[in-house]
């Protein structure tokens, strides 16, 4: 790493036009050329605004009150312009889909160089496509791309201007884990082999530990510290305070009293083994019984069933693309089902079929005793509620309250006001009831859609990626709320990529792969089954990986369960 700064902010303050308070306050910051910086901090800490000062969007596009100075690659951003700075700084947005403005991938990547009238635009385009690893997709239309491919296209389109700094805003938020790893691998390669300075905004400590070389913690519009990754992760308590819980392995080792900041489960396992060989740690049977289904299963009622279901969609070319293929599944009362599998495995389609929004091309879906083919969707909505992946798509009205009461009021449910009050209170949104749902934070939006679903009083509640693009605090909030609901909903199904959600909440996991049920089991059994994990591209939570590395049985799903496998031997006492 060379020592010269590529980004330098001095006494930087910024206030958005019309805002009551500064979003950035007296920021002093240096990013060295060739660094891989993870910017962390809670919602509203000014991370995104800070990154927008690097490419001049602040103050040239957002003309608020700007004080201090930012130098990027030697240029004062105040004196420069967004267009000129774009050859120094590339920016990939969190909602990168909206960043794509041209129909084909090659056009999209060439857009910048052609606009700037660069004679070598064709070479730059080809080079950027190769750096992002998407040369084979060059002639695809952007709406044919998967999320991961679209993200890499957005990355390639900024790389075509050969920037020295690339800023990536929360790549993990909108991608499935496999795609997120792919994006990080590409960024890592750019950083290693092409010397590009990478700045990512990231909530996930696991990615920070694996890829970043330094961590910048933001709080309340100012940096708290900027430290090398190992030192930063060692300050687990401080990170947790700002909504970035330590990686599970770091937490687990702290709990076991083992020194060290492991960057991966393998490193953690090595540290634990060393501690064991030194006699500082001893294995014991787990003291607390791990969570299992203890009730000797009374014959539970089937809430929904799919029998021999096949479904597919027409493509632009006119041919039928199968999504679900001869699928059998029965959901029982009391089940907390996690539906997992890669993008395109058919999770959303299956949920829409189970909710009766669509009917299958062949086979039958029986919802709460009714064949979905024989009943209108609005009648089936009284039995099953499906909550979309993007919460704002469920906000039809001008306030959360109106949205929640839409369903019960139009069905003449008695005493709607009391019902809605109760539900809003339950999801802790009473104070926000008169706000437009779109103006709420990510976690509040999720809770608002949950309220809409609860007001439908369904037997089957289906949620599509309820924890996607949430910071860790809001995510835990949603998981806790789901757990509380078990009393009022007969069966809840959650489609998710979030293995922490699977480990902490689900009692049953259905793994979809290529439109089939690849496995239908418990989270513990799933995480112990390497074949299924590999086929469905699933990565277990770190604590389960650590458990596997150490050969623990039963496999721990939480840090507490892992700790129960060990006894700490006090120092000085011979083992």
């Amino acid at each position: 790493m060379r020592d010269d700064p590529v980004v330098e902010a001095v006494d930087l303050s910024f206030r958005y036009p019309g805002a009551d308070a500064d979003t950035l306050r007296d920021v002093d910051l240096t990013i060295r050329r060739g660094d891989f910086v993870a910017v962390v901090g809670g919602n509203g800490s000014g991370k995104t605004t800070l990154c927008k000062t690097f490419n001049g969007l602040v103050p040239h596009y957002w003309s608020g009150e700007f004080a201090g100075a930012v130098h990027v690659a030697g240029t004062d951003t105040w004196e420069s312009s967004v267009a000129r700075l774009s050859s120094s700084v590339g920016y990939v947005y969190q909602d990168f889909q909206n960043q794509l403005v041209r129909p084909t991938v090659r056009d999209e990547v060439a857009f910048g160089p052609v606009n700037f009238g660069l004679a070598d635009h064709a070479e730059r385009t080809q080079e950027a496509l190769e750096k992002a690893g998407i040369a084979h997709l060059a002639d695809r239309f952007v709406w044919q791309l998967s999320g991961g491919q679209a993200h890499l296209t957005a990355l390639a389109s900024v790389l075509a201007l050969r920037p020295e700094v690339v800023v990536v805003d929360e790549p993990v938020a909108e991608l499935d884990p496999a795609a997120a790893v792919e994006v990080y691998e590409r960024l890592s390669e750019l950083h290693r082999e092409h010397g590009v300075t990478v700045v990512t905004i990231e909530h996930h400590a696991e990615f920070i530990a694996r890829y970043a070389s330094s961590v910048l913690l933001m709080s309340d519009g100012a940096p708290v510290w900027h430290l090398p990754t190992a030192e930063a992760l060692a300050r687990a308590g401080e990170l947790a305070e700002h909504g970035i819980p330590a990686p599970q392995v770091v937490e687990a080792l702290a709990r076991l009293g083992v020194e060290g900041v492991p960057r991966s489960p393998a490193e953690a396992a090595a540290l634990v083994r060393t501690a064991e060989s030194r006699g500082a740690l001893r294995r014991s049977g787990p003291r607390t019984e791990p969570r299992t289904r203890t009730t000797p299963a009374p014959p539970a009622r089937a809430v929904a069933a799919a029998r021999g279901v096949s479904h597919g969609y027409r493509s632009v070319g006119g041919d039928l693309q199968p999504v679900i293929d001869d699928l059998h599944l029965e959901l029982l009362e009391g089940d907390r089902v996690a539906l997992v599998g890669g993008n395109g495995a058919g999770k959303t389609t299956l949920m829409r079929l189970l909710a009766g929004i669509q009917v299958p091309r062949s086979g039958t879906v029986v919802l709460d005793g009714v064949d979905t083919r024989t009943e209108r969707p609005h009648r089936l909505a009284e039995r099953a509620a499906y909550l979309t992946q993007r919460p704002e798509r469920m906000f039809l009205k001008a306030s959360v309250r109106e949205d929640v009461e839409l369903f019960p009021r139009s069905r003449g449910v008695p005493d709607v006001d009391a019902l809605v009050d109760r539900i809003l209170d339950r999801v802790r949104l009473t104070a926000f009831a008169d706000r437009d749902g779109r103006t709420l934070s990510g976690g509040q939006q999720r809770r608002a859609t949950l309220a809409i679903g609860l007001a439908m009083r369904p037997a089957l509640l289906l949620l599509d990626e309820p924890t996607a693009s949430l910071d860790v605090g809001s995510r835990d909030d949603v998981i806790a709320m789901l757990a509380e609901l078990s009393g009022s909903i007969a069966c809840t199904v959650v489609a998710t990529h979030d293995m922490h959600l699977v480990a902490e909440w689900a009692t049953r996991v259905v793994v979809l792969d290529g439109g089939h049920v690849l496995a239908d089991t418990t989270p513990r059994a799933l995480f112990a089954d390497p074949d299924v994990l590999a086929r469905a591209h699933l990565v277990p939570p770190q604590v389960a990986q650590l458990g596997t590395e150490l050969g623990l049985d039963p496999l721990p799903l939480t840090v507490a369960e892992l700790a129960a496998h060990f006894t700490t031997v006090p120092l000085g006492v011979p083992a």
Partner: protein
Amino acid sequence: MSVARVQRDVLSVEWVKLELIRTAYATRGGLFAGMDPRAVVGWYAAMALAPWFTHNLTTVACLFVVAAAAVVLARVGPLVLGLFVIGLVLELVYLALAATLFGGDLTAVVALLEVTAKLGVLSLASLAAFVSLDPEKLSDALLALRFPPAVAFAVSYGYRMMPILVEEFATVMEGYRLRQLPPQQRGLLGWRVVVHWAVVAVKAFYPIFLNTAKSVRTTVEALEARGFTFATIDPRGRAIRIGSLRLGPLDLAVLAVTAALVAGCYAAGAQWPLHRS
């Protein structure tokens, strides 16, 4: 009410979306899709203007046939063609009704028929031309013809927004369909249901526009960062864009044949003139 729901492949929202994409990006191919966009625009101008220089019904009818042949060669999809036919038929019905109700006779219908036929030629030519031009080609052609860059970009971006808007609309309508009960008494000819859906369709615009506006903010920032405004001042970008346009033998052949056919239509009109008296 007993129902038996099935998955439909045509006349569903999903189908409309696919048809829009197929139409916008000329995925069906066709004669004009392989041509230089400037030649297509030229061809369109010739066909669209041709019927307006005559009152000879024979000429107009011949031009109509030529335009219809062009639509077949351009492989226009069922959605836009269907909309065109419905529009034309409704227009004819309306004309006949209006003429009889307001005490006119058949001459009024014939007079209006001429205008309708000319508009028909124009519409058919538009279908053939714009179905064959994907937005990129169209915007390059507009740039080459010295339209302002913002107009050229708006065309290409407008096309990209279309499937997004259709999808937003479908999602919002689905939300209403599931969450708001339609009226239980259907009324005469189901008028209550019709009014219900008309009201919902209007209400749907509120969430659609708010959701779209939110996502467009990112788009505008990204455009700025990638030199879109810069390209409107600096001419080099335009030079690169239109540098790849080449007129080939196919373009010249199609233009020559079209010129010959239009001349033929006028010749036929001169040979067998038919004017409304």
